[in-house]
């Protein structure tokens, strides 16, 4: 199989600060999709396609995303078409252990509330804040996505919209209050518990990209550690 420069390890050439709003929104949407649900055979097939590879190539040029893009590419390209169902099950098993409660303590629940409430409960103040955020933006969770409002994928989807529509200050505040106070721990838990490496790479990409993106936003808005 023909190799790809970026995915094969050539140093990425683009810093996060150079990205356009449209590109940043695409990155957040991509990350949201990775954590929203298990990969399906169809989604893996799309990643293998020319367009899918082009997408990974492009993402792979952005410094913090390179390892994750390479990991996705490797997982879909190292096997034959016939093995895609088995690969989808590998990843679904890892997803369930990490994000659906199957893994017990060795897991990474994808909810801000879990990380910021003392008892590790879900549906705490961050969920309420996200409920408000969605309502304010005239959005709700899709029917096919019966999840909690402070699910990582929801937060990233909202952020993608903010990146395209809201002032930098608002984007910075959202990053500070909704993501940066927990995704580091989240990524560490993924790293510790993900036997496949797929989600560990994705979570690391998320944490590093979000930090770099926050740093690239105007400094006039000091980083807040606000919670709730």
């Amino acid at each position, binding site marked *: *199989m023909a190799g790809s420069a970026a995915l094969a390890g050539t140093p990425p050439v*683009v810093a996060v600060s150079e990205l356009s709003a449209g590109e940043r929104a695409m990155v957040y949407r991509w990350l949201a999709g990775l954590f929203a649900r298990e990969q399906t055979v169809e989604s893996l097939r799309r990643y293998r396609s020319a367009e899918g590879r082009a997408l990974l190539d492009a993402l792979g040029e952005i410094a913090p995303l390179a390892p994750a893009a390479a990991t996705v590419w490797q997982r879909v390209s190292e096997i034959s078409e016939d093995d895609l169902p088995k690969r989808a099950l590998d990843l679904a098993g*890892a997803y369930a252990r990490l994000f659906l409660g199957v893994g017990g303590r060795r897991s990474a629940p994808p909810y801000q509330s879990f990380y910021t409430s*003392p*008892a590790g409960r879900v549906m705490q103040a961050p969920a309420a804040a996200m409920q408000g955020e*969605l309502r304010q933006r005239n959005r709700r969770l899709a029917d096919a996505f*019966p999840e909690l409002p402070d699910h990582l*994928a929801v937060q990233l989807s909202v952020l993608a919209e903010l990146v395209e529509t809201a002032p930098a200050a608002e984007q910075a505040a959202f990053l500070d209050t909704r993501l940066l106070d927990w995704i580091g721990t989240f990524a560490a838990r993924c790293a510790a518990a993900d036997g496949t490496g797929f989600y560990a790479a994705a979570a690391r990409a998320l944490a590093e990209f979000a930090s770099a993106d926050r740093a690239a936003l105007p400094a006039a808005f000091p980083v807040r550690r606000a919670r709730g």
Partner: protein
Amino acid sequence: MTKTVPARPAGSPATGLTRRRFLETTAAASVLGAVSPSILAPGAAHAQASGEVLSGCHWGAFQATVEDGRWTAVRGWDQDAYPSHQLQGVLDSVYSPTRIKYPMVRRAYLENGPGSDVESRGMDDFVRVTWDEALDLVAAEFKRMGETYGPTGVYAGSYGWKSPGKLHNCQSLLRRMLNVSGVGYVNSSGDYSTGASQIIMPHVMGTLEVYEQQTAWPVLVESTDTLVFWGADPMVTNQIGWVIPDHGGFEGMQAFKDTGKPVIFIDPVRTESHDFFGEQAEWIAPRPQSDVAMMLGIAHTLYTEDLHDQQFLDEYTFGFDRFLPYLTGESDGTPKDADWAAEISGIDAETIRGLARRFADGTTMLASGWSLQRQHLGEQRHWMLVTLASMLGQIGLPGGGFGLSYHYSNGGSPSADGPVLPGITDGGKAVEGAAWLTASGAASIPLARLVDMLENPGAEFDFNGKRDTYPDVHMTYWVGGNPMAHHQDRNRMVAAWRKFETVVVQDFQWTATARHADIVLPATTSYERNDVEQYGDYSLKAVVAMKKVVEPLYEARNDMDIFAELADRMGAKEAFTEGKSEMEWLEEFYSSAEDQAQALGNPIPDFDGFWEEGYLEFPVSEAGRNYVRYADFREDPLLEPLGTPTGLIEIYSVNIEKMGYDDCPPHPTWMEPLERLGMPNAEYPLHVATSHPRSRLHSQLCGTALRETYAVAGREPCLIHPDDAGARGIADGDVVRVFNGRGQMLAGAVLTDAIMPGVIRVNEGGWFDPVDPETVGSLCKYGDVNTLSPDLGTSKLAQGNCGHTVLADVEKFTGDLPEVTVFNTPANG
């Protein structure tokens, strides 16, 4: 075959920039849309409910604070003066990351079908499937079971502390679905709480005894001189109820405390209940399982010192004359005197004689817990207790006699004249005409014989005078229970469990049992649906609307709806639902209460009025406040006979004599159990007390933040006397390994003189968490004490469980400490 991947899109690889610009093309948006699910939709969601909701659970009635659809706080109902601290854990359980969110199937099962790679249960991956896929799998499996194995292929004797509620009774609903769909199944009888007592007591007293109202607390306060709690810790266990507890037992105990009268605790542990009574309390700690011997020693003293009530024995009991030669030793050469009892129990003879004299001097209530009968030969304990109470002659008098439910569901809380609500039925009637299928299943086993059944299909077993055959089951469907916690001898069970080709578990959290299943279905908690329930197991003081507190999370569905879908797949949906909605069922149950109230001349509001108010209280009656158990029988034993063959208290049972069991003779008898502290040639030096925990309901809420209030080094606590700890180099807070020939588990040592030397205590209900689920006998990292307990019947009579018959040893754990993985814990925890 590898599909060729085309070269990268147009653009110079050298610049990168152009390639990156691909991100802003419609092609990129298109592929991203294809690899990502839809997360947000346009349009704001409506604001959800806010306010306070009254509802109920096993821990009590409560007020839930809800803000915009989120449950944010919980407090006990205003009418409950003694709310349980465990309510916080209830809220925690709803919002725990250990919730089962979506239908899941074990991977090997999904790929290769039933029976695949069963050794990997507990370790294999789970994969999310749609509800339709999951239910299709289950329905197909029911069909295959019937075709392949006949009507006894499915074990649906599903047992456990399901949530209360007259409609959403998942165990009745399971059997209803099977009955109306014509799926044959094996049922179970009995329970793990009172397996021995509920079988022996009908022979002795003519009733179950263990689940019946006790002489009311106000009567005890007035008339009891000495209150004895024999193997009971009512301050701990009365927190919970099978329906919604009224906590009237706490009120009773407080009133008794206020009298200053003595309370004797006979227990290996100086319990929380003992401490509650302060200086009035006295602690006597015999060797565990020696109770029958100690009671015989007391009985012998009563007899030889002529303190017994011969007149009562003559008039109200049968067979004392046949028991007496055994007591005196005339029949076997061994007088069961205080000295003999002292040798076995470790309590000095003078104390035993002193107890006899104190019991006889004044009015004595012998209140026993159930730990005594959850032991090998457990039938004998309560039989001997009744015999002792008969000799004291106070049964049926105010404040005297015996009681087997003061520690459970607030027995003795005075009753009201309230109506009794009916509930959903198992639909047995719907299958009349199917000759092989009775309303209660095609076959049934005493439920604690589950593993025996799996190991020995076709083998015969004895049970209460009958001889039956173990059916050959190949599938189980478990709802409202966690057998990987409540069943004994975990390692034997894990191996036997592999006989199931298909295990379906329907629950709301990832219990050990769910982890050992093939198909896992997410059910709602009882706080995500509407129901009605009685308040006060015995007092029936109110009916409470168990209103939905919050909307179901994730893809959780009501048990009722899950079973309706399964019935639909088998062509029986209409028979299952009878075309009624949730609220229509509740209204129907309530209308029965309305009819009863009308008949009593105390009409109650209509359903809408009740639902709006949220509860309906009934005043405690004068009769309820003054209730004396067996007063009628004592008043006139001929007109009010007991339900025994003789109509009398049977100290000797001719029926049991006819059964001819070597392990259950026809009168109360001391026999050495399987293993016992201090018995000759005991294999291990310590007894393990496996009492009910203070901050759990068996295994329920073990997965919540409450655990942080009692766990030691992240493990289940193990109480140990400083002498026993010192001899083993164990310090407070150490991780210890508790072990015997059946299994091994880790625990956190708690050094205390509140436990007698020679005994350690690990509460039952800790979640099973093996280091290596594929290897039978693997170390449990958290502390499931049933890794150590034996799995055998109490006797051929009752076949109850023996969860308190445990010897073991303990050592400081010095190996590499394995991380507890069964729970999800806070990020920084």
